């Protein structure tokens, strides 16, 4: 059972209280973008083995979206941060590199 701390309401929530929302920090493409850019925005995913930045929805809690950094191999959660962040904040990156010194953020 995954367990996240919601950065909005500060509740520690089991995954049954949450709804997963897939990869985070995908740049949104709108009308006027190229077909290729729109395809990448809609469908193409990093789908990494290892650290994954992703979105979660606190469905049965405060009803807000937030971001999390999680390892897709070990299920370890490195921290959560607000949905308004356009890239992972420093304390999250630090938390990851502390435990995974060889990790590179691509």
């Amino acid at each position, binding site marked *: 059972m*995954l367990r996240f701390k919601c950065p909005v309401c500060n509740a520690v929530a089991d*995954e049954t209280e949450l709804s*997963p929302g897939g990869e985070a920090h995908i740049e949104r493409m709108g009308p006027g973008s190229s077909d290729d850019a729109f395809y990448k925005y*809609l469908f193409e995913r990093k*789908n*990494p*083995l290892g650290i994954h930045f992703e979105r979660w929805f606190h469905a049965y809690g405060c009803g807000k979206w937030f971001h999390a950094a999680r390892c*897709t191999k070990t299920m370890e959660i490195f921290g959560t941060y607000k949905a308004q962040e356009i890239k992972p904040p420093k304390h999250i990156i630090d938390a990851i590199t502390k435990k995974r010194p060889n990790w590179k953020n691509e």
Partner: protein
Amino acid sequence: MKKYSAFALVKEAFNNHLGWGRAWRYAQPKKRYKVIIVGAGGHGLATAYYLGKNFGIRDVAVIEKGWLGGGNTGRNTTIIRSNYLHEESAAIYEKSRSLYETLSQELNYNIMFSPRGVMMLCQTEHELRAMKRTYYANRLFGVQTEMVSPMRMKEMIPIINTDGPRYPILGGLWQPRGGTARHDAVAWGYARAISSWGADIIENCEVTGIVREESKVASIQTTKGSIDCEKLCFVVAGSSSLLAELAGFRLPLESVALQALVSEPIKPVMDCVVMANTVHGYMSQSDKGEMVIGGGADGYNNYSQRGSFQHIEETVRALIETFPIISRLRQLRQWGGIVDMTGDRSPIISKTPVENIFLNCGWGTGGFKAIPGSGWATAELVAHGNPGKLAAPFSLARFVEGRMIDESIAAAVAH
């Protein structure tokens, strides 16, 4: 290859069964192959088989990071059906199902194909209408299915509770020639066939790098050294994104865990496969008597081959309403596999941005039933360099062109 027959069985009975030999050779990589297939699961082995059978390409290596058939081929609920809504899907899944019918004879290997029938339940008005639509579509495409009333369903499946209360059964879509097969045997049978004509199956051999020369692949680096190839084909399901990353491109895939479980064995209670899509559970009884139960996939990226406990709970809780008889059964085993989900829940059989790399992936939660047809279509793609009629709709380009084959909406659930 030693032919399996009644005569061989009698002969070996007088020989203490010492003369059977291995079903396939253990091979070490050669310097170079015409085609390298990455992934020795059902789809990869079937691709190698039809490359040899239909196109005479037998200078093939199938390499595998783990053991043969140890991924999703050995982790599914072995259901075979072809009652899909869209023409493109019905074509490839029906090709596959029809190949399954004679696969045991063709491979001289008993894959225990059991066309016991697949029943898809309609438990809401919506689902009833959607299934009728699927039924009409199936008729048009020549897939044999029929609609079944609750009363007839109760006769066919006496243990079913058609009254609800929450999800009463309003009807069913019945495919009489759907069924199950022995999943491991499918991989073993193909492996034995391709090994007999000289193709190499190399287990415990992980791809660590892909060496490109301009727009083409020249060789691959593996944990057993470097191997040259003319053509390369990725058939690695949940790990497709990782191989694509090595080759320098990305895919429209997400890898998630899908789980299944079996109960303790009981006497025969149900002689067909039942799929309850609204409540997200499906069940059949194995020849050993275990109830084989599959459920829904997790919603988040996962490579751990373990899923969330609550999904098992949800599946079982839902099935108990429809099958009260199973409520006291104990769970024998539970396991997970990593499936590669596309946005439209249809597979990808396609060329890639790299000229001589081909791709077979994206089968998501429903790959087992497709093994022969998928191998057939992928072999055609690899041999000719261009997709044939079966594979063409499933290209990567469909995502750019918006030409989806949307089975996620059509089936409510993809299996």
